[in-house]
C-alpha cells in the first residue's frame, strides 16, 4: 500500500476549503442582477385555496412578480412525480398523485407552497409574501398514520382510504405453516419515529435564464444534479434537457433530503424566464423543518417464530408507513424494496411474510433519510431477535450466532441474495472489544452506585451500492442505477476524473483520487475530481444509498482499465516492443525482461503529440469513459454493541460504551470510514434518544426549531470504539461494500436493546427520552414488586 493508495489514511483534500470558509455553496453564488424569491406557505395542514389576492403585494416597492399554481398550470409545468412504481397485493398500481410545485386547489400540509413572490431584495420579497391575501377554506386534517386509512378526511380524490398501496412480500402460506409448528412466538409492536434530516446547509436554488441561447442554468443543493435535470425536463416540462444546466456545487450535507426535486428549484427556474432575471432562494431553518422531506415514520407489528432451541422458523411483519401529504421522488420504494427486503437480517430465516401499507397524512412528505428503509428493518429485526432471546432465556449473542447465515451466496425469502459476509467474526470481535464477559461485573458496579446498566446488540445488514439496473427495473424503479466516469489524462500527465457521483460531505475528492493515483502511479495532488455539473459530467445517478464507493468508484476503475489499455498500446510503440510485453506498474511502462521503460507522463504527452505512433491505428489523446452497472447490491453488515447506564431518579440514559465492528469490504480510507461511522451512530443515537418530529392534531409541526427538536450534540455521545472485519465484496471490481449509512442503521436497535436490558422492561418508544425511561423504570419496578 502506498501512502495515498487504497487503504491509506489520507487527509481530506477538500477540508482546507471547507474549514477556512472557502467553500462554494449555492448561496455563495451570485449572478449580477439577481432577484429573490420568497414562498408564501400554507399555514393550514389541509385547506382549499379559494383565491390569492396579490394586488397589495404587487404594489410594494421592489416586487417584480407574484405567481401561483394557476400560472404554472398555464405554462404546463408538471407536478413532482413518484419515481418508483409499487403494485398492491391485488395487482393494482399505486395511487401516487403528483405534487404541484405551487398549490393547485388545496394545500395538504403546513408548508405546502401556495405562491411565490419575486422581488429585488429578499426583504422586499418577504414583505410581498406577507402582503398576499390568501383566502383559505380550512378542511379537517388527518395526521396520525394509524388513523388515516379509516379517516373521513380524504387528501387526494384518486387515493381512496388515503392509501398509496397495500403491498406484500414473501410467502404467506409458508410463513403461516412455520408459525403453526413454532415452539415459541415473540410479538412486538414498534414505532419508528419521524425524523427531520437537518443538513447543515439549508436547501437553496439560483436559476438564470439566458434569453440569447434559450437555456437555463440552475445552481442547487442536490445530491444528484443529473437526476434533477432529468425530472425537471421529462416530467415537469421546465426546459428540455439540453437547454438546462444543473450545477450542484459544494453541498453541505444531504442525508437523503437533497436527492429529491423540490418545488422551490422548479419554480425559481421557471420564474427566471418569467421575470427575465436570475432568481435566488435560500431556505431558512424553519422552512427546512417544514419542507425538507422527513424520514422514517413507521408503525409495525411483528412476530417471530422459533423452535425449542431458538432456531428462527418464520417472521411476520405488518407495517404502516407514512408518506406524508404527497409521494416524494423515492418515497414509495423506501418502505418496500429498501425495507422488507432486509427483514431477514443476518439470519437464516426459512419463511418471511411482510405487508406494508403506505398512507397519506397532512404532514410533510416523507422520503429516504440516511439508511432509508434499512434502519427501520434493522430496528424491527434486532429488537425482536433480542426480545426473543430474552424470552427464551438464551444469551442474545448466542441466539444470534445460532441463527446467522453461514454459507454464501445465501438466498433470503425476501428477494436478496447475500454474496459474502462473516457475521460471527464481527460479533465475536465486538464482544471482545467491549469485554462482554465482564459486563455482569460492570452491571453490579453500576448497581452499587444506584444506576441501572444495560447492554444491547445490533447485528445489522444493509443492501447498498444500489443496484443492478435490470433488478431495480423489475421492481418498479423508473431509472437505472449504474454510474458513469470519465478519466481525462492531460498531456502533462495529471488527470481530471469526471464522475456522476456527487460529494456532499463524503470526501470523494480524496477517496476517488486515492484510487486514480494508485492505479496510474501519480501523486494524489495530480488528480482532480470533477462532479456536480451537468455540463461537465455527461450523466450520472448521484450519491445516496452508500453507492458512490461501490458503484461510482467501480465506474472510474473501469475507465482506468481503458486508459491503461490505450496507454500500453502507445507505450509499446514508444518502446518499440510488442503490446503484450508491456507491463504497467507504479507509474512506469516497461518491457518484460528488459530494462527499457517509460513513465506515465511521457506516454500521456506522447498521446497528445501523436508523432510516434500510427494515428490510423491509435487515435491521438488519452481520455476514456465508462458506465458501470453493478451485478448485485452490496451487503455491508456488522455488529454494534451499546452499553448504557441509567439514572433511575431522572431517567437520564448515559451511553457509557460503544463498539462498532463493521464489514464494509475493502476500505479505501479508514479515517473517512471511521468518520462516516461516527456520524452515522450520532444520527442513530439521535433517533433513539433525542429526535422526534411532533405534530399536533391540527397538523402544526410543534418541533420546528432547535429549541424543540433535539439534535445530538457532542456531549450526548460517548467515545466510539470502531473496528472492521473484511470480506471483500465479490460483485464489484474493488471489493467495496459501502459505509455511509451503517451507523444510522445499526444504532437505534443497539440503544433500545441496551435500555430495555437495563430496565428489564421491553416497552419503550423512541426517542427514549428521560421522561419515557423514567416512566418505564417505574412500571418495571412495579412489575418486579408484584
Amino acid at each position: 500500500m502506498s501512502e495515498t493508495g487504497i487503504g491509506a489514511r489520507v487527509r481530506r483534500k477538500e477540508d482546507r476549503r471547507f474549514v477556512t470558509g472557502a467553500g462554494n455553496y449555492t448561496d455563495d453564488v451570485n449572478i449580477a442582477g439577481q432577484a429573490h424569491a420568497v414562498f408564501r406557505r400554507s399555514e393550514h395542514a389541509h385547506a382549499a385555496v379559494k383565491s390569492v389576492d396579490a394586488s397589495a403585494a404587487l404594489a410594494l416597492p421592489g416586487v417584480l412578480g407574484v405567481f401561483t399554481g394557476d400560472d404554472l398550470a398555464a405554462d404546463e409545468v408538471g407536478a413532482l412525480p413518484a419515481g418508483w412504481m409499487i403494485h398492491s397485493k391485488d395487482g393494482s398500481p399505486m395511487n401516487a398523485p403528483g405534487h404541484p410545485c405551487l398549490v393547485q386547489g388545496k394545500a395538504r400540509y403546513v408548508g405546502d407552497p401556495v405562491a411565490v413572490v419575486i422581488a429585488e431584495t429578499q426583504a422586499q420579497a418577504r414583505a410581498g409574501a406577507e402582503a398576499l391575501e390568501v383566502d383559505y377554506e380550512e378542511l379537517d386534517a388527518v395526521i396520525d398514520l394509524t388513523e388515516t386509512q379509516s379517516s373521513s378526511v380524504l387528501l387526494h380524490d384518486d387515493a381512496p382510504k388515503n392509501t398509496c398501496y397495500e403491498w406484500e412480500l414473501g410467502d404467506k402460506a409458508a410463513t403461516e405453516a412455520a408459525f403453526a409448528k413454532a415452539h415459541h412466538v415473540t410479538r412486538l409492536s414498534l414505532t419508528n419515529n419521524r425524523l427531520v434530516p437537518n443538513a447543515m446547509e439549508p436547501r437553496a436554488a439560483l436559476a438564470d435564464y439566458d434569453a440569447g441561447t434559450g437555456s437555463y442554468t440552475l445552481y442547487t443543493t442536490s445530491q444528484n444534479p443529473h437526476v434533477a435535470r432529468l425530472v425537471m425536463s421529462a416530467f415537469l416540462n421546465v426546459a428540455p434537457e439540453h437547454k438546462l444546466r444543473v450545477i450542484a456545487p459544494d453541498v453541505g450535507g444531504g442525508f437523503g433530503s437533497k436527492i429529491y426535486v423540490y418545488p422551490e428549484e422548479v419554480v425559481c427556474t421557471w420564474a427566471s424566464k418569467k421575470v427575465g432575471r436570475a432568481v435566488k432562494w435560500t431556505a431558512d431553518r424553519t422552512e427546512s423543518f417544514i419542507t425538507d422531506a422527513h424520514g422514517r415514520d413507521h408503525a409495525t407489528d411483528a412476530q417471530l417464530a422459533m423452535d425449542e432451541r431458538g432456531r428462527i422458523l418464520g417472521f411476520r411483519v405488518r407495517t404502516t408507513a407514512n408518506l406524508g401529504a404527497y409521494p416524494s421522488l423515492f418515497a414509495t420504494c423506501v418502505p418496500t424494496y429498501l425495507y422488507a427486503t432486509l427483514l431477514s437480517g443476518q439470519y437464516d430465516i426459512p419463511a418471511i411474510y411482510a405487508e406494508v401499507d403506505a398512507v397519506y397524512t397532512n404532514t410533510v412528505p416523507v422520503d429516504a433519510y440516511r439508511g432509508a428503509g434499512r434502519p427501520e428493518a434493522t430496528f424491527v429485526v434486532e429488537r425482536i431477535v433480542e426480545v426473543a432471546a430474552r424470552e427464551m432465556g438464551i444469551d442474545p449473542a448466542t441466539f444470534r450466532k445460532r441463527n446467522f447465515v453461514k454459507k454464501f451466496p445465501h438466498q433470503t425469502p425476501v428477494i436478496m441474495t447475500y454474496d459474502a459476509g462473516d457475521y460471527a467474526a464481527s460479533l465475536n470481535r465486538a464482544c471482545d472489544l467491549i469485554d462482554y464477559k465482564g459486563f455482569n461485573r460492570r452491571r453490579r458496579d453500576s448497581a452499587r452506585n444506584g444506576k441501572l446498566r444495560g447492554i444491547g446488540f445490533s447485528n445489522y445488514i444493509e443492501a447498498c451500492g444500489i443496484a443492478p439496473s435490470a433488478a431495480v427495473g423489475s421492481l418498479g424503479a423508473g431509472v437505472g442505477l449504474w454510474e458513469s466516469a470519465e478519466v481525462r489524462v492531460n498531456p502533462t500527465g495529471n488527470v481530471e476524473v469526471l464522475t456522476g457521483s456527487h460529494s456532499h460531505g463524503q470526501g470523494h475528492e480524496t477517496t476517488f483520487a486515492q484510487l486514480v493515483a494508485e492505479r496510474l502511479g501519480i501523486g494524489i495532488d495530480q488528480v482532480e475530481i470533477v462532479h456536480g455539473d451537468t455540463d461537465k459530467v455527461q450523466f450520472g445517478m448521484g450519491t445516496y444509498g452508500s453507492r458512490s464507493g461501490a458503484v461510482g468508484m467501480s465506474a472510474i476503475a473501469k475507465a482506468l482499465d481503458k486508459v491503461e489499455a490505450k496507454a500500453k498500446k502507445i507505450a509499446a510503440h514508444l518502446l518499440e516492443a510488442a503490446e503484450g510485453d508491456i507491463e504497467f506498474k507504479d507509474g512506469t511502462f516497461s518491457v518484460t525482461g528488459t530494462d527499457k521503460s517509460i513513465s506515465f507522463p511521457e506516454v500521456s504527452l506522447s498521446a497528445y503529440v501523436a508523432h510516434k505512433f500510427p494515428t490510423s491505428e491509435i487515435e491521438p489523446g488519452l481520455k476514456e469513459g465508462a458506465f458501470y452497472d453493478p451485478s448485485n447490491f452490496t451487503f455491508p453488515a456488522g455488529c454494534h454493541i451499546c452499553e448504557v447506564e441509567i439514572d433511575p431518579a431522572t431517567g437520564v440514559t448515559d451511553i457509557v460504551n460503544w463498539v462498532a465492528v463493521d464489514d464494509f469490504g475493502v476500505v479505501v480510507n479508514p479515517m473517512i470510514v471511521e468518520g462516516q461511522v461516527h456520524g452515522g451512530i450520532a444520527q442513530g443515537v439521535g433517533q433513539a434518544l433525542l429526535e422526534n418530529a411532533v405534530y399536533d392534531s391540527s397538523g402544526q409541526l410543534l418541533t420546528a426549531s432547535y429549541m424543540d427538536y433535539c439534535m445530538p450534540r457532542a456531549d450526548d455521545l460517548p467515545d466510539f470504539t470502531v473496528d472492521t472485519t473484511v470480506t471483500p465484496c465479490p460483485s464489484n471490481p474493488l471489493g467495496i461494500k459501502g459505509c455511509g449509512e451503517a451507523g444510522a442503521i445499526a444504532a437505534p436497535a443497539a440503544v433500545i436493546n441496551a435500555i430495555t436490558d437495563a430496565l428489564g422492561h421491553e416497552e419503550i418508544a423512541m426517542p427514549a427520552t428521560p421522561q419515557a425511561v423514567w416512566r418505564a423504570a417505574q412500571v418495571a419496578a412495579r412489575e418486579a414488586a408484584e
Partner: protein
Amino acid sequence: MYDFAFHRPASIRKAASLAADEDAKLLAGGQTLLPTMKQRLAAPEALIDLSGIEGLTGIAMKGRTLHVGAMSRHAEVAESPVVREAIPALAALAGGIGDPHVRNLGTLGGSIANNDPAADYPAACLGLGATIATNKRRIPADDFFTGMFETALQDGEIITKVLFPVPRRAGYAKFANPASRYALVGVFVSKRSRQVRVAVTGAGPGVFRATDMEEALSKRFAARSLDGVSVPAGDLNDDIHASADYRAHLVGVMAKRAVDAA
C-alpha cells in the same frame, strides 16, 4: 426581521427617555430579543442598545453583598473570581446558561427583565433573596418576578444592577431540556443565617418558591430532609417536553441535588 431604528445612548437618563416610547425595546445581550425579531414574532420600532452606558457593568463585593452590574455577561459572572469566592453556585449557574455564544453576549439584566419561565437567573435571584436595583428604585426579588415573561418593571425603568446577599450555603441543580438546554426544571437553594430559600424555575409558568421544601430544609439543611416533600403537579407545565408529574418529580430530585451541591 422588520426595519427598526437603532439608538445607543451613553446615559441611563437618555436611555430611559427613549424607552418611554412604548414601541421601543431595550437591547441588552439580545439573546432572546434578536432571534424573536428575526422570526418576526417581535417587531419593535426602535431598539435602545444599553451596551454604551457606563455604570451598568462591574462586579464587586460591598460589605456582605455581591453587586453585579446588569450588563454583566454570563461568561463574566461565571469566570469572576469575586463571584466564585462569594457565591460559587451563582458562578456555576451562569456558566451553565446556553452555550458559549449565548454566555458571551447574554446579560444578567436582560435575562431577569425577560423573565423566561425556564431561565436560570430568576431562580438565583429568588433563591438568594436578591434585590434588583433600577434607575428608579430597589425591588426585592420576591416582588420582581410577577408571572410568565412578566416583571414589576415599569415603562422606562432600567435595571442597573442586582444585589445578592452572600449566603452561607447555596446550590443550583438544573435538569436541562435536551433540545434548548433551558431548564426543564432548575432548583436553587440557599441558606443564610436562619433563612432557607428554594426557588424553582422551568417547572411552572414562572419562577416560584417551594415553601414546603424551605420549611423542611429549615429544620435541617440536608437532602434527606426533602424525603416525602413535593410540589403539587397541578400547578406545573405540561407540554411535549415533559408532563407535569414528571416535572414535579424532577423538582424533588433537583432540590436534593442542589442541597448536596451547596
